[in-house]
């Protein structure tokens, strides 16, 4: 059964310096509040895994929390670049960032393999492009048909962190809408933390919802608005204006640092 904890305690107990940590959520339900708590607690030397590094990874990278990034698309959706990610890769600021780059299909297969406790995922992919020489992918032969396929090493992070709409008092977690790779992230990770909008007495059914039983989750923390500026379907909308505004905030190192000091370091965890 998952333990119900505060966000600060959950991050303190589950995430260590040097860990491989995945904060997932495909556009929807991105665990921003948990990312901010990682920054406030000063976690360092992290390997960050995420298909679509978003504003929250831009913030973690810009604050120097990451040693390495494993990803497949690192941009500000519909807006443009992630400037802190670019600055780290192009200029090593505030520190050099090692990258391991995949395609979306490769990352998705690596997550599914991790959830299944298989050593690798298999796909029709990485076909005749320059990514092959730059990432961890191998060619394997199908033992039944002889078809050449791509194999990607399974994702097995130390900690998986996701945000969901709600949990019950036993720590069973329910999420719906675009569910991305969140189930796989929790199942593939050695430890897991789920932030939720609210804790309810009973999880009545919702169309398309998935439920993660409390016994596969280590800790649940209430963090209302914990996905903002991403969104929580049925609770609040994506703050598209903020994603647009982030472009100017993040473009300049000083503006970025001042923004982080005011809005993240100076804030208190839920």
């Amino acid at each position, binding site marked *: 059964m998952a333990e119900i904890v505060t966000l600060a305690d959950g991050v303190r107990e589950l995430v260590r310096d040097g860990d491989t940590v995945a904060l997932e959520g*495909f556009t929807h339900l991105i665990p921003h509040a948990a990312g901010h708590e990682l920054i406030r607690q000063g976690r360092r030397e992290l390997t960050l895994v995420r298909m679509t590094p978003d504003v929250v990874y831009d913030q973690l990278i810009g604050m120097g929390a990451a040693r390495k990034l494993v990803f497949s698309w690192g941009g500000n959706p519909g807006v443009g670049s992630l400037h802190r990610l670019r600055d780290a890769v192009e200029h090593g600021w505030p520190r050099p960032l090692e990258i391991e780059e995949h395609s979306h299909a490769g990352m998705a297969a690596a997550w599914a393999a991790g959830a299944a406790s298989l050593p690798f995922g298999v796909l029709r992919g990485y076909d*005749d492009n320059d990514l092959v020489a730059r990432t961890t992918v191998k060619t394997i032969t199908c033992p039944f048909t002889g078809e050449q396929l791509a194999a990607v090493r399974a994702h097995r992070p130390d900690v998986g962190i996701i945000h969901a709409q709600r949990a019950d008092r036993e720590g069973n977690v329910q999420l719906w809408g675009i569910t991305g*790779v969140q189930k796989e992230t929790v199942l593939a990770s050695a430890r897991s933390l789920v932030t939720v909008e609210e804790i309810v007495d009973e999880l009545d059914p919702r169309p398309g919802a998935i439920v993660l039983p409390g016994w596969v989750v280590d800790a649940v923390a209430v963090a209302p608005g914990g996905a903002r500026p991403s969104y929580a379907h049925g609770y609040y909308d994506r703050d598209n204006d903020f994603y647009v505004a982030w472009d100017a905030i993040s473009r300049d190192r000083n503006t970025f640092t001042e923004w982080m000091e005011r809005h993240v370091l100076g804030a208190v965890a839920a």
Partner: protein
Amino acid sequence: MSPEYSADEMMAVEAARRLTSDNVCFVGIGLPSTAANLARRTHAPGCVLVYESGTIGAKPTRLPLSIGDGELAETADAVVSVPEMFAYWLQSGRIDVGFLGAAQIDRHGNLNSTVIGSYDAPKVRLPGAGGAPEIATSVENVFVMLRQTRRAFVEQLDFKSSRGDRVRVVVTDLGILEPRDGELTLTRVHPGVGVDDVRAATGWELAVAPDLSRTEPPTVAELAALRELEAA
């Protein structure tokens, strides 16, 4: 007398014209999403829009900023997980059209969305390939939308993010390129554009089709539908 329109509007309209109600279309954000939604609202109401966030058959009333906006899930026929999207739906060949954009394209339709400069010390680190590598090899018909400049239409890619052998058409702000004998060839120019303009915006020796024609300008109805979509 045709109405006034912008180069982006010409691109969106021309790309939309290539979709039919029989297509299942993998849609990226930006111009491709505009074109696909325009097609669905005009001549191709049955066209199925698939966004990589896992929304199949999305019918948004306004253009989404991201591929995961809530309205896509609310209006979809089905919402599936991301591993399912790429394994069951894309790699299985159930999607027949995929739109791609890029920072660079070469004469064979290979695309770069990864880096400008060298990979280890990039001049510009771009967002990366995302869904493109497997879209480019899983759908039968790849449609590319890209503004035509010498910086984008290059002799040699800085990085090959996806392969180009299924690229059927490249819609630019100047005209249309289609593969002829394995090489992207100018087959149409948009109204008011000359062949020399397109050559000047292409970084390789551009082949021009002997049957080169001119794109029909957007109709009043197409423009009205497009502007209504963008204003929503």
